[in-house]
């Protein structure tokens, strides 16, 4: 008979091992899935995980890694802080969209003014837009006890409608021949977020993501606010006894994760995406939830997990192109990753013991 026996403390080894196990299990099951679809499983896995970095088209796809990883890491860093406190912001996607809109709004309002302060002002506006969108669930929870999970998630769909309205209405490019979508910010130097070093994919968002990793690491391990957040997540009564006001914590965590998601949205709109369209949200806000958990809510883990999930985006596109794998395969992959991670997570808290019945 096989039994699960609780561990006395969370196992440090398994903390690191479970994400690796989850990735391996995802590859195996994914391979099986591709085999059932009539593709060569080994080739498919190689196309997704190996070719983007070292394959024939790697010189094109490698820079994409940073382009895709930056928003994931930036958003996940903020989400992880809230998740540690047991405050569940599921609506980063919406905060990302609103941040992109408010940030781009500054540029569109100032066009064609040329000044060095425009881009910094856009970043601030992006932060503020995401923060404000995150504060809606925070205030509703603090005032009425509404679940921040539901409210933040619902606001994603509101944000998507706002993006569509902007793209077809107020922000529509007056010189765009009637096509939906705003002016292209890549053609507006004061407002654009260009590739800073050729063929690396590194734009300002990449540096912002790295800064967010360092800042959240300092917050969570060195600052008393981070200590209070961790205490509130595991022992809320003890945190209140220490002097933590739960309402302040809710506002802080939702505000912080919202602001970082908003900044990610701005960097995307001003850089790789270039314009506000109704397709502004591409799912980074949701994938970042997987990144946060795969990285064990730890800044360094999030850095690695962000790169890995960026790889699945690029590899998935590549596999779609070269092997005609279905487009949904990337989402299946990412979903399986979270599924296996949560499943294997039981090993960090329990040991498996084989018992002979007495």
């Amino acid at each position, binding site marked *: 008979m096989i039994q699960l026996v609780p561990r*006395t*403390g*969370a196992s440090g080894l398994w903390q690191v091992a479970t994400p690796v196990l989850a990735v391996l299990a995802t590859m195996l099951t994914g391979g099986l899935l591709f085999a059932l679809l009539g593709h060569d499983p080994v080739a498919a896995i190689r196309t997704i995980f190996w070719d983007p970095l070292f394959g024939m088209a790697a010189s094109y796809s490698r820079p994409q890694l940073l382009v895709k990883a930056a928003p994931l890491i930036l958003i996940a860093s903020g989400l992880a802080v809230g998740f540690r406190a047991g405050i569940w912001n599921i609506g980063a996607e919406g905060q990302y969209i609103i941040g992109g809109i408010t940030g781009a709004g500054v540029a569109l309002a100032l066009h064609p003014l040329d000044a060095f302060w425009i881009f910094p002002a856009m970043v601030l506006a992006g932060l503020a837009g995401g923060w404000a969108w995150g504060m809606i669930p925070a205030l509703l929870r603090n005032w009425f006890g509404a679940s921040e999970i539901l409210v933040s998630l619902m606001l994603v769909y509101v944000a998507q409608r706002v993006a569509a309205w902007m793209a077809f209405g107020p922000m529509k490019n007056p010189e765009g021949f009637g096509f939906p979508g705003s002016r292209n910010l890549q053609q507006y130097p004061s407002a654009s977020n260009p590739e800073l070093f050729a063929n690396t994919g590194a734009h300002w968002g990449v540096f912002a993501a790295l800064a967010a990793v360092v800042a959240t690491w300092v917050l969570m391990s*060195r*600052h*008393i*606010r981070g*200590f209070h957040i*961790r*205490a509130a997540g*595991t*022992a809320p*009564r*003890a*945190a*209140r*006894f*220490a*002097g933590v*006001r739960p309402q302040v914590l809710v506002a802080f965590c939702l505000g912080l994760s919202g602001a970082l998601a908003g900044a990610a949205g701005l960097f995307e709109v001003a850089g790789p995406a270039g314009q506000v369209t109704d397709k502004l949200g591409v799912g980074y806000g949701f994938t970042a939830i997987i990144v946060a958990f795969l990285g064990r809510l730890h800044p360094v883990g999030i850095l690695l997990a962000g790169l890995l999930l960026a790889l699945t985006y690029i590899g998935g596109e590549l596999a779609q192109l070269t092997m005609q794998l279905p487009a949904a395969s990337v989402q299946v992959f990412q979903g399986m990753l979270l599924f296996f991670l949560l499943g294997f997570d039981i090993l960090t808290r329990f040991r498996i013991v084989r018992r002979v019945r*007495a």
Partner: protein
Amino acid sequence: MDSATVFRADGVGKTYPGVRANDDVSFEIAKGEIHALLGENGAGKSTLVKMIYGLVRPDDGHMTLLDRPHEPSDPRAARAAGVAMVFQHFSLFDALTVAENIALGMENPPPRRELADRITKVSHEFGLPLNPARRVVTLSAGERQRVEIIRCLLQNPRLLIMDEPTSVLTPQEAELLFATLRKLAAQGTAILYISHKLEEIRAHCDRATILRHGRVVDSCNPRDHSANQLAAMMVGGEMRAVDRSGRNAGETLLDLRDLSLPAPTAEGVALKSVSLSLRAGEILGIGGVAGNGQEELLAALSGEMPSTPGTLSVEGADLSQAGPAARRRAGLLAAPEDRLGHAAVPDFSLTENTLLTAGDRKSLVRRGLIDHDAARDFAQAVIATFDVRTPGPGTAAKALSGGNLQKFVIGREVLQDPRVLVVNQPTWGVDAGAAAAVRQSLLDLARSGAGVIVISQDLDEILELSDRFCALNEGRLSDPVPTEGLTLERIGLMLGGAHGMEEARI
């Protein structure tokens, strides 16, 4: 084996990973005997009774019940063999009636009406007044315990195990319980009685088996020994009497005036116009049965529940609206009852747990940044000063035994040199040696000029420590009386007497 013996253990042993919980335990319980099982926390009492009740299997030795081998595979088998147990923590459904709760615990419950009649009959027979139609939610702790006892009695047990039954009772309720136990014993039921309360055991038990480190170290008639001698047998050394000398009441430190707070939760208790004043060098004892507002009073003092302006002041400064951090800066410190999850974060190390309350006063946090070295040094100081048994300050709080964590929690506050310290149940579930150390530290703190409030259900503790006594009953605080010359009977009346005493006299 003579027929007067109901239960016998022969060389019973049980090993858990890393711990020999019971080793070569042998003892007998005679028919009609109230037999005490004495020992510090972790001495192996609960493992032993769990084996008798079929919750745990012994590794070696054997047990005999009524001349038959007793090897219960689960509690159901143990009950069928004639063993019943009343646990310290009740397992009752609040929303159901007394009769429904009892029916749920029976293998073959009789029809409702018949069951109600039997409950009434048994409750009258043994002097345990209880109305089978009442909902459990409306019952006091003592009445809830009666439900558990009657549930056991309906099985006609030959051996009744009671785990710390009086910890939730007022003295009058406890007397009522002992009267019942004596009636039961007179009918031939053997009773195994587990308690920390030595005076109670001396007054009511016929024999005592004393466990230390999992082994039987002594067996005696508790009436032939003083409480101090019994305690010495438990801990294996002389008990140090606490030293109350050298304290003089000084100026007023803490003043509560007409403090009222609504109940924080549906199960909580509202505080009703609580007033008290505490002077420097004084220990004020607040007694009462659990669930009469103790937690709420602590929260009102610690700052977790702010009150209306003008109701709470420390050294003249109005702190009614201040949060816990501001109150700590002003010198008002608190140690809640619930060690794991309230006074300490279970998953955090002892070093991290110092940051919960000592960040400001011990300069462990400067400009928001944590000084980990200073925190570790402070944790180390608490461990050394209060004899906390742990591998080191990096150990998680949940890995400590209850007594050791309690010493850490109290030590963390005492070493911050508070002006006023409020503790709730400072020695609950703590073994005798550690309890004495905790009490002495509170007395030393008062001698150094601080004011101390001890909220406790343990009346002996309150009488031992405090200069004045107040009773907390349904959120109301009585006027203080000097503890000098105060008797347990008088305290019991202050606590509101036994619930249901009136019915008992019928």
